[in-house]
């Protein structure tokens, strides 16, 4: 693949993720408003928010590590962009992905969290550090069950770690979710996704009402805008990852209906995220860890064992 083509994919991935992510954020706020019997923000609200943040002054707090503080949002944004570009290529040419892209995606998906941790520790604010340490514990909680359930489609597709092969396997043999292990794994993946996106009930690192936005407390202007954009892009990237792994619904080569189907599933997942976040209260960080390690991980292990047995 040439350099030009690579840049094209990166730019395409960024634009797609930003546009869909902004839509996802608007959708989330609109549904929240409707649940609370309000009208909600207009469609272009995320665009206004982002452009406004670009125009604001960037402040670096006294005592903060300037370089780390300002570069942390870029790490997260870059990682999300690369994941989105990889997905774009995987969806367009499922046959041409490289070996191990699944592993790369899993790695890259943790970088936004690490960017939040770095940025919050660099900002020299006690509440931000609290948010950062909570984010760290949150990552430690959900990462293990998430990795385990990602194993399920890998096992089903005959031990491949190429996203393209997983999609092609599902196109011929039926979706992973159509089996017992697949269903369990998908439900667990949904729960982990909620934590990855740091939505209620797993939003302890942000906790608006408690630690005032936690990790983001000292961020303003462009830096805050980039963090928000990364968050919104994650709302596109993570659900798409689950759809590729478990449903394989993005296989448009078979029929164009699959694309429509994929959009519907994506909106369904967004709706699920929003409704869960509106009907639950925030868990404390120790409750989150207990929940993931004591309740979710055993089920994830069960799903892997079932997958090995071919169920």
């Amino acid at each position, binding site marked *: 693949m040439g350099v030009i083509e690579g840049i094209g994919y990166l730019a395409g991935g960024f634009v797609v993720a930003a546009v869909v992510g902004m839509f996802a954020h608007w959708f989330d706020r609109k549904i929240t408003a409707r649940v609370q*019997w309000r009208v909600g*923000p207009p469609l272009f609200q995320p665009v206004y928010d982002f452009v406004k943040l670009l125009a604001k002054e960037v*402040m670096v707090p006294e005592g903060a590590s300037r370089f780390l503080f300002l570069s942390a949002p870029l790490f997260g944004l870059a990682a999300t962009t690369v994941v989105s570009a990889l997905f774009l290529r995987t969806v367009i040419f499922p046959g041409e992905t490289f070996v191990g892209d699944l592993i790369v995606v899993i790695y890259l998906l943790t970088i936004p969290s690490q960017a939040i941790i770095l940025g919050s520790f660099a900002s020299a604010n006690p509440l931000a550090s609290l948010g950062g340490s909570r984010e760290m514990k949150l990552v430690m909680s959900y990462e293990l069950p998430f990795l385990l359930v990602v194993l399920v489609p890998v096992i089903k597709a005959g031990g491949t770690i190429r996203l393209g092969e997983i999609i092609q396997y599902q196109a011929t043999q039926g979706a992973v979710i159509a089996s017992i292990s697949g269903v369990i794994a998908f439900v667990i993946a949904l729960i982990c996704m909620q934590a990855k996106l740091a939505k209620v009930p797993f939003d302890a690192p942000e906790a608006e009402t408690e630690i005032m936005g936690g990790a983001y407390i000292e961020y303003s202007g462009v830096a805050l805008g980039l963090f928000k954009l990364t968050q919104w892009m994650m709302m596109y990237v993570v659900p798409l990852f689950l759809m590729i792994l478990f449903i394989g619904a993005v296989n448009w080569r078979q029929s164009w209906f699959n694309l429509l189907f994929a959009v519907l599933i994506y909106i369904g997942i967004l709706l699920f995220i929003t409704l869960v976040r509106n009907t639950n209260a925030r868990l404390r960080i120790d409750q989150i860890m207990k929940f993931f390690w004591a309740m979710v991980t055993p089920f994830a292990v069960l799903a892997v064992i079932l997958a090995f047995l071919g169920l």
Partner: protein
Amino acid sequence: MSLKIKALTKSIWVFHLAASPCNNCDIEILDLLTPRWDIERFGIQLVGSVRHADAILVTGSMNRKAHERVKRVISQAPQPCFVIALGNCACSMEMFGASYNQMHCLDEVTKVHAYIAGCPPKPEAMIQGIIALIEAQLAALKK
């Protein structure tokens, strides 16, 4: 430039600064978020950190202790940021003006961009005040 200004007027994030109010104004601010008024329609949001703020709503009559804190918080907001005095207390100290623990009125400490009177002001009055602020700023920019 015009896009930025349009975005700013369409997405005002408000930081609520309680400088020793009687708490009634604050309750009325929360009313703005309820289904009846729902200011999220206009992109207005309450935020928890002053670093995210585009407007600072100050309530209360600022006693001796609050005085320094208000100055410090306002100085921490990224520009452009507007200060709105909400309620008679913040506008003029009202009946607490003669009290032993009051020093200065809010507009003696910092530049205030809008005054919203009332004790407490009605949510409609607050919306009107914010609209007046936006229009005044747009008119000032056009000149």
